[in-house]
């Protein structure tokens, strides 16, 4: 795994901001979902586009992946990937507070993804005096999709089929656990190279304030 091109102080600052955002997001989610949501301490690392599929594949044989773009001021932007394991979707409707017949499994997965992504990134943004906007979440891939039109059988295949216009990205992986529903999923935030520089600038400004 690549070392981050951040100074020790920058990395410390980013990690702390993310930790705090996780705590607050977990609190908000617990209130809304009426069950405790535990966010596991994230790993922050740099990945090259060449190895992205390897990196992600080694972690998850995902059955569904949802992508949602985010963008804020000061050139901070990226893409959040929510990756679900088999069985994760069993009681999703229940967790979300819907009746199972009110929405399809795909919609449940998309809905939950959007909630997890935006809740975390909103608090993250407020930590750095920023504000996020989001694109609509999209189901990139689902193995139980009824109208499956592609033969891709995993997220890594999906990623392998893309050609990227970036070389290096910052990858933040956060695992969400909902013990009461024996549910967990991974959120991977990917921030392209150009935006990493902008994040570093924001971090430097915060560090100066101390």
């Amino acid at each position, binding site marked *: 795994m690549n070392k981050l091109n951040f100074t020790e102080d920058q990395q*410390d*600052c980013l990690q702390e901001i993310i930790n705090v955002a996780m705590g607050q997001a977990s609190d908000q989610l617990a209130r809304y979902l009426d069950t405790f949501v535990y966010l596991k301490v994230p790993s922050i690392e740099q990945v090259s586009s060449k190895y992205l599929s390897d990196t992600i594949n080694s972690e998850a044989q995902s059955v569904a992946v949802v992508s949602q773009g985010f963008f804020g001021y000061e050139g901070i932007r990226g893409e959040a990937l929510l990756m679900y394991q088999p069985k994760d979707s069993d009681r999703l409707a229940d967790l979300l507070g819907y009746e199972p017949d009110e929405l399809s499994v795909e919609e449940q997965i998309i809905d939950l993804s959007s909630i997890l992504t935006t809740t975390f990134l909103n608090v993250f943004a407020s*930590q750095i005096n920023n504000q996020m906007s989001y694109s609509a979440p999209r189901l990139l891939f689902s193995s139980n999709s009824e109208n499956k039109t592609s033969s891709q059988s995993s997220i890594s295949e999906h990623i392998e089929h893309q050609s990227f216009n970036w070389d290096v990205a910052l990858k933040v992986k956060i695992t969400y656990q909902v013990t009461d529903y024996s549910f967990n999923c991974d959120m991977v935030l990917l921030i392209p190279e150009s935006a990493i520089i902008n994040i570093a600038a924001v971090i430097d400004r915060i560090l100066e304030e101390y």
Partner: protein
Amino acid sequence: MSLSVLICDDSNMARKQVLRILPEALADNVQLATNGAEALEVLNSQNIDVLFLDLTMPVVDGVGVLQGIKEAGITVKVFVISADIQPEMQTKVLDLGAKAFLRKPVQLDVLNSHLEQHGLL
């Protein structure tokens, strides 16, 4: 009389965050520790009045420090400052003798009201 204070957090930024909002009465005599083991070393060798303690840390974590304090019978007022806000964790640290559980990022007014409550202001 100025109180002796120890701030224990593995994050440099988090330590600074606490330092920045410490009221004058507590700001004169402050020491820093970057993990639980360092904190216990200080606590065992010196008289510390107030400890601001993070939970998730390498070597010895916050819970370990609280247990160490209890075992050694050290008198110190501990305020846990953490982003890990699981209800079980809050109960656990309060059971282990912490005076209060403060959420990160700790705000000036919240800190002051807790310090006041425990006669430190």
